[in-house]
């Protein structure tokens, strides 16, 4: 008497279904991590609010990140720059984060900001050509002026991964925009 395939394989098939579901789940999980949940908002040493500075007070980006238009890196402002304004702003002098700032100032130290937007070491992203090409800061960094704490918003820039760069370079017809050596060397 023969034994049927599916009869014999019932438990195997069940196991397979579970395995397939687990794999699909893993894909979903991984995708969700990257695509939905991965707004990356690290805690900074000082709770500096771009919402207050860039939003309410309308300080232009390049006032502090002064090298963006001239150099590969945008640069973070020196402690001196921060203190330069805050010296005169006595009304916020007692806020805990401003106190922290002046602590740094008095200790003569730099502030160890946590990088939010970062590319791997083999990618040579240069700010200057992008700024000169008229790319808004917000295109990559998101509406920073609305953020109390800066977030890398995954819906905006897909975690700064290469497909996103390539798409823009293709759409904008950047000169040598699809040449690997433009970014990787």
């Amino acid at each position, binding site marked *: *008497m*023969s*034994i*049927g*395939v*599916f*009869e014999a394989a019932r438990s195997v098939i069940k196991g397979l279904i579970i395995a397939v579901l687990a794999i699909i789940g893993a894909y979903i999980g991984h995708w969700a991590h990257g695509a939905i949940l991965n707004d990356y908002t690290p805690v900074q040493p000082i709770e500096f609010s771009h919402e207050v500075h860039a939003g309410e007070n309308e300080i232009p980006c390049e006032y502090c990140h002064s090298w963006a238009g001239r150099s590969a890196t945008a640069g973070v402002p020196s402690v001196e720059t921060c203190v330069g304004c805050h010296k005169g702003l006595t009304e916020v002098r007692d806020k805990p984060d401003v106190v922290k700032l002046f602590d740094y100032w008095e200790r003569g130290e730099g502030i160890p900001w946590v990088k939010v937007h970062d590319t791997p070491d083999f990618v040579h992203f240069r700010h200057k050509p992008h700024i000169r090409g008229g790319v808004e800061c917000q295109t990559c960094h998101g509406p920073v002026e609305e953020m109390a704490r800066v977030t890398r918003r995954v819906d905006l820039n897909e975690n700064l991964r290469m497909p996103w760069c390539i798409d823009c370079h293709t759409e904008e017809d950047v000169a040598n925009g*699809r040449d*690997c050596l433009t970014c990787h060397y």
Partner: protein
Amino acid sequence: MTLLASFAHEDAALDAARALREKGVAGVDLYSPIPLHGAEEALGLGKSLVRVFTLLGGILGAIGGFTLCVWTATRFILPTAGRPVITLPPYLLITYESTILLGTLMTLLGFFVVARLPAWRDRTYRASSNVDRFVISVAGPGAAEAEDILRAAGAESIERESAS
């Protein structure tokens, strides 16, 4: 109801099958431990459909392989060694390989489809038919009249399996 007749000799089984066919008995099948030359003719099996699958697979593979090469090469154009983007000799090699790959896979698919595998539970199957017995099964209405023919052909034993 299915009639199962077991034979010890392949020529006897083939004779029986032939006789059944001549009588126009339907639902005849022959279980054997080895492929029997003459079974095709005895049971009226023609050329297998598998070859269509193989051909289709080959054609699909050839087109697919070449398209894959051309399509991928033109997605992100990275010229190499001064060669044109669409370079025939290497692409034909890939085409050749993919022809065989798809041909093989389609043949496998064809085999399963044509042989109707995997099979469901088969009550008429007897393990002895995979050792040294040749079993002829007659299913359905012809079973009654087949019994005599099978006995005449020299069946060792005949049993009945009620249909499930």
